[in-house]
């Protein structure tokens, strides 16, 4: 990364507002995300976490405010003034989106190998042998047995589906991945395995991640920084350990104190 890039964030979110009718989902959200940084967004259900994620991932339009992304020329570019073609290209090359329910992010009726390789085929890869190699490599990286490569995700367990979804998103070596509760649907031991995998991959690939979760343990494990949302407002943000160990806002204090300690 060149020197000029260091001074600019990968993603700059400014005064974002989104409401559904009278109901305000996001109220004046602003933050910067730096390259290679993992940012957790926590809060209770309905606090606007997922709305925020969808808006900054250009999946829905905000009512006001802007989101800028650092392009390859080292300049911040407003993602809402891009053409739809540019947005879509960005979201299937430099970005990834991991859904809570893996079925939303996978093609359930085509094989795991094809799921992993779809983005590459979309970018013009036309060599079957090379695609197979890539698929093998990625299934190996997310700890899925190569013998399952030609099975459909429908035959996979929840944890395998989630790992396959991660592989499908990372195959183009993105710079930024959005994750919406990636581990909430999984049982605890599977959750630990997926989280461990995510932690390894984000570190190795220097991924910047915005991860939405209601689970503070997930934030603690993965995130460098975190934001706490309540009723559409970002009420507190800071380094993860700092926020969790010394919460300032009453709502954050409530949230931290309500976690059960085993």
């Amino acid at each position, binding site marked *: 990364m060149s020197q000029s890039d260091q001074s600019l964030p990968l993603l700059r979110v400014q005064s974002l507002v989104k409401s559904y009718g009278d109901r305000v989902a996001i109220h004046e959200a602003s933050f910067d995300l730096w390259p290679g940084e993992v940012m957790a967004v926590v809060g209770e259900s309905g606090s606007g976490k997922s709305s925020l994620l969808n808006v900054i991932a250009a999946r829905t339009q905000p009512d006001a405010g802007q989101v800028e992304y650092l392009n390859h020329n080292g300049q911040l570019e407003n993602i809402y003034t891009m053409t*739809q073609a540019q947005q879509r290209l960005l979201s299937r090359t430099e970005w990834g989106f991991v859904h809570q329910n893996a079925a939303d992010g996978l093609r359930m009726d085509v094989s795991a190998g094809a799921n992993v390789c*779809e983005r590459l085929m979309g970018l013009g890869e036309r*060599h079957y042998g090379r695609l197979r190699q890539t698929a093998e490599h990625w299934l190996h990286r997310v700890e899925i047995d190569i013998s399952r490569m030609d099975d459909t995700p429908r035959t996979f367990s929840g944890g395998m589906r989630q790992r396959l979804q991660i592989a499908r998103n990372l195959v183009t070596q993105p710079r930024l991945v959005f994750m919406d509760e990636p581990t909430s649907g999984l049982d605890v031991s599977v959750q630990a395995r997926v989280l461990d995998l995510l932690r390894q991959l984000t570190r190795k690939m220097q991924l910047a991640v915005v991860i939405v979760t209601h689970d503070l343990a997930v934030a603690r494990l993965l995130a460098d920084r975190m934001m706490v949302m309540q009723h559409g407002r970002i009420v507190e943000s800071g380094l993860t350990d700092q926020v969790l160990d010394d919460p300032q806002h009453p709502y954050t204090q409530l949230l931290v104190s309500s976690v059960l300690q085993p």
Partner: protein
Amino acid sequence: MSASYETAPEVNFAYLDERTKRMIRRSILKAIAIPGYQVPFGSREMPLPYGWGTGGIQVTASVIGPEDMLKVIDQGSDDTVNAVNIRRFFERTAGVNTTTRTHEATLIQTRHRIPEKPLVEGQIIVYQVPVPEPMQRLEPREAETRTLHGLAEYGLMHVKLYEDIARYGHIATTYDYPVMVNHRYIMSPSPNPKFDNPKMHMNPALQLFGAGREKRIYAVPPYTSVESLAFEDHPFEIQKWPVACTQCGATDSFLDEIITDDSGSRMHVCSDSDYCQTRQDEQSSVAT
């Protein structure tokens, strides 16, 4: 085949009313202007069920004139029920002359085949299309497939071919094999066997496609590039048969396998009945 020039007086020429024909012609013109693009049109109810060629009939009815010579084929044959009925439909409603000879026809309506005899300039071939959207099986949302066409995001089509190779070791799609038209739009060539795909490429005739139930018309203008999709290490190939046609000895045509008795005997004959018959006639005239 003799045509009776009496059209039933209560029916407009070629069945459809003039305003409907004009509407369909506008869609056809648009389709020709954007090769491979699916143009929506107000498909009418026709006196035969969906799936029997309502789209093709409406296109034919809109482009046919009293001077046209019509040929109708179904799976290559002029004598199967779909072909016979549609041919008779236009004999009765348009009073046009009909033929089974490919080279005599000015207008050919077809289901699932392209004649073996190369088409020439001035001819129009109309295909009956059941499913116009090549990505429908993989992406059921039509709003999404339209966006994919609009932005030329066609990774999905190779997913389909990838799946074939992963499952069967080769591209097992043998009909409705997706093509790229004019280097821009992915198109379903109607359920033709892939054997016919190369014939569509740079064809001198005008190729029109009508899907009645799905209400779509698309077209390949004369001399337009039509490429079959493939992988570099799994190139596109057409079907081959180890035998020749039992009737005419052709080795270059699409062969149907016919079981001839209960003990499993079988023979291969040309699917294109006119091609086969023409060859047989030539052979007998040489012999005498």
